[in-house]
């Protein structure tokens, strides 16, 4: 059965990860964490972390069926991620400490709120 499908009634609980922009329900973030970023965001079972690292404000839903082949995925820099539903734009900013952690881990964080495209 489809795990990434979210019924319209549940869509108001959707949140998007600010790092990888994957869109899932709050409950899934809580139960499973972010499938792409869990290693450093540690969202699983941590509502606080979910609140600060995911955003309920996002636009432009993308369903990625094949992250490797899809140009959309590549353009959105989703090609290393699991297939699923992503957002084109995620508003909100990662807390500074999380950013620092990312930097320390050598992860280049791509803001998903549109500020990154300015730089290109």
């Amino acid at each position, binding site marked *: 059965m489809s795990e990434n499908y979210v019924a319209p009634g549940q869509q108001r609980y959707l949140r998007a990860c600010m790092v990888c922009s994957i869109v899932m329900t709050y409950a899934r973030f809580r139960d499973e964490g972010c499938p792409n970023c869990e290693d450093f965001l540690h969202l699983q079972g941590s509502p606080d972390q979910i609140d600060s690292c995911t955003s309920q404000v996002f636009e432009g839903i993308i369903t990625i069926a094949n992250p490797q082949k899809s140009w959309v995925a590549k353009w959105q820099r989703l090609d290393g991620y699991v297939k699923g539903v992503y957002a084109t734009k995620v508003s*909100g900013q990662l807390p*500074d400490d999380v950013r620092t952690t990312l930097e320390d881990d050598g992860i280049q964080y791509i803001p998903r709120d549109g500020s990154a495209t300015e730089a290109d």
Partner: protein
Amino acid sequence: MASNSWQFAGADDESDDDNFNPAPADMSDEENNDNDEETTHNHRPAGKTVRQASSPVPDEEEEEEEHDEEEDARPAKRSRRDHHDDDEDEEQDEEENEEIDEEEEEDEEEEEDEEDEDDVHGGNRRKRRNKDRRAAFFDIEAEVDDEDEGEDEVGDGEEIEDFIDNAHPDDIADSGRLNDDRRHRELDRRREMEASLDAEKQAEILRERYGKRAPARGYGDMAIVPRRLLLPSVEDPSIWAVRCKEGKEREVIFSIMRRIEERMGTKNEVPITAAFERGGINSVMKGYIYVEAQRQNDILVALDGILNVYPRSNMHLVEIKDMPDLLRVIKTPNLEPGAWVRLKKPAKHAGDLAQVIDVTENGLEARVRFIPRLDYGVRDDPVFQADGKRKRPGVPGPRPPQRLFSEAEARKRHPRYLQGNPQTNSWNYNGDDFENGFQVKDIKIQQLEVKNVNPTLEEVTKFASGAEDGTENLDLKALAATLKDSAKSVAYVPGDIIEVYEGEQQGVIGKATNVQGDIVTLQVTEGDLAGRTIDVPNKGLRKRFRIGDHVKVIGGSRFRDEVGMVVKIVDDRVTLLTDQTNTEITVFSKDLREASDIGGQGSLGQYSLLDLVQLDATTVGCIVKVDRESVVVLDQNGDTKQVQPSQITNKLPKRKFAVAADRNGSEIRLDDVVREYGGQQRQGKIIHIHRSYIFLHTTTTNENAGVFVTRANSVTTVAAKGGRNTATAGPDLSAMNPALKRNPTASGKQMPAPRTFGPDRAINQTVVIRRGGYKGLLGIVKDTTDTHARVELHSRGKIITIPKADLSFKDKVTGKTIDINQRGGSRGGFGGGGRGGGEFGSRTPMASGGSDRTPAWGSSRSTARTPAWNRDAGGSRTPAWNDGSRTVNPYDGSRTPYGGATAYGGIGSRTPAWHSGSRTPAPDSFGHGSKTPAWSAGSDSWGSKTPGYGASAPTPGASGDAWGYTPGASGGGNSSSAYDAPTPGGGLSAPTPGAALNAPTPGAYSAPTPAAVSAPTPGAWQGGWGSGGDAVSAPTPGALGAPTPGAPGYADDD
């Protein structure tokens, strides 16, 4: 980092192989670069990969060897690891290190496996692996190599189907299976180890372990490749726009997601690679979803039967160059505290204006304040309505009006739900927070309307009026005006001088020649590119001004419509000096335009600057500032207030002929220049007269546009033009008055008429001509007119006519300059002479007496008398004197009433005192040696003050004696009955004493000075006069008498 980079390199190698879309040559460049950058590790693992691929199932020993090799090759990594463990137990240290290294190696081994599997392509790999298993002992190296090469050569196109499975999780699973046995053993050992560590260290290790691993997970390649290298090519799948039902975009995407997952692994997998939507209420892309697939038919298959999407009716292929635009993301500007927003969410408040107080760190929630809509439970009807149905929650009834929170009302019905602090005026009522009457709430930003808020002045005014101090009021109101249309983006107009401050063309300056949408075409005017025409996007541009430019504020700022001169430029902030108020304001250059007009906007509707308007029945005001939506009015009380045109009752037309009177009673009209009397002495031109208030305009201050208001009766006119004296409003009477003309030296206003009474005193005077051809010659005035005198010159024996003003009167004896008009003294002498009937020898004493007297007079006149006179109203002096002199004047008849009746009032009392008291006795006493005692008595009485004097009786005493005499003298001196009337006439019988008794008391007291003065004066000259007959005796005592009493009199006075 070594490991990371190493892994990145591996990944790059992979992607080299994996690259199903190898199109851009840049890409490979990029990778080459990457490889170059990497250290030797890069090559090692790469080589190793090949080796491993060639022997996919290495035995333990071989692997150990490899580990060793790796360890050697990565000293950096190891040292870091060691360093990290420093704080751990020494005992465990070694063991752990070993352990960790082992784990590490395992991890890496796994990844190597991954890599090596990635190296080989998906579907093949699985098969091959199986084959490998079975044929572990067969030499298949060659075959594999061939295959690899073949794959490389064949390229991606054919392999695409297999490619899908090339996902990491699978790989991991595979590698797990691969090393099954060994891993089990490892796991056991590790668990043992971990169990022996305490939780914290475990956590530390775990974090270290996974923290390390994370970056390896597909982040490397993603972060490195710049976007422009990711642009789509023909190799990429195409994107089709598919029509769908508006508002259902998201649902459709999720439906597709579901279908993809449901059919995954089945033979009819959904053949698309991605689908997305860019819906949204305001989006231009709503009503479409975008599906990425290789073939159009795939989309039809994929979307078949999905609700709300219509692939068959409407489907466009998106051109490759447009593809990136589909996914363009524009950053939403962050909310700033103080910004205005509209609420979307609490249905009760939908559309209400709110002000942002604070924004959370992640920018997703804002604390806003707005005006609550509370009914305080008034409409809290029971849960069951009349029809028995349960009220459906969420259905908003009529919503209560916006009103600030009232503690009292809340307390009335729900005292239990109310808690708070009256000091800070913050309350919690029914779970909502209220501060200063406003409801304060944390609201998610998606429930706020941030763009195009356009608050109206009325709305914002409500917020402003909630502020405790009135000062904030104005600011906020002004802000309201500001915010209007603030959502409009910068508008460039052809002709604008524009600077590029951001992006590749940074620093270019040019003139806009064309503006289309977001693209501005610039004709470059400066720098290397001068003369070229370039297109630049709107953002990153700013208008450029120079100091001294005359600019107008066009928007965004609350200074909108101000016009002024640029005085300073810092980045994009421009400071200008406004024309209207001469104040400095700072605005963004984007809000400025080169201005051609001068001065700010002068009018709002029918109201323009400096108009007089009626605010209410009792208030009028002058418009001193015109804003966009409101005007500032200075009302008659001097208060300024900002009002909207709707609050103005009407405009008061300028009444051209309005007249008011200033404090001097002078008439003032519009445009007269007047000065405030007292206060700041501001001076200004009258622009409005309203009842007793006048509105003045001055250029010396710019406060209130130079307008101030004051009362008409507190100003005086200054300008000649405005100096309409009511006294002169009619014909100039003084000019028509021949008497005044005749005696021009007399200060015209002080009772001129009496003075000029009788023959001109100039006649028979010795004069020197001061001016003209006869200058310096001496002569005698023979005749006069009002203005001229006929003078008989001593030297030439002829009579000439000369203006009186050119004459200087000289004393006949001493040659001193005298003033013939000033006093009776000289006149007395003169008169005496006149009466004497000519210039006789015997007269000379008279004259000399007069001249003797003159100094006496002179002294008194110059020093004491003048002030004394000044004390009295000026007008009264002359008559008093005149009276004195006149009393004895032969022409008295007509004059007495004058003196007596005069309004020269103050003196009314004095005049009698004068007549009776001092004069009458004095002359007598002086006139006769025997009277001296009387005089002395008089002088005593002077010394002892008036009662003594008044009572004194000197007068009676003197008169008692005197009368025997005086009448004789006077009767002899001049028999005129007129003379008798005032003084002696009365004096003869009872009057004198009566007068003396009556008058002195008040008179002497009220005005000692005049009394004193008067005493000598008449005395002196009454003597001189009264003794018309016995001239000799009179002058002397007169001369003596005069000074003596005079002195004490003055002293008294002072």
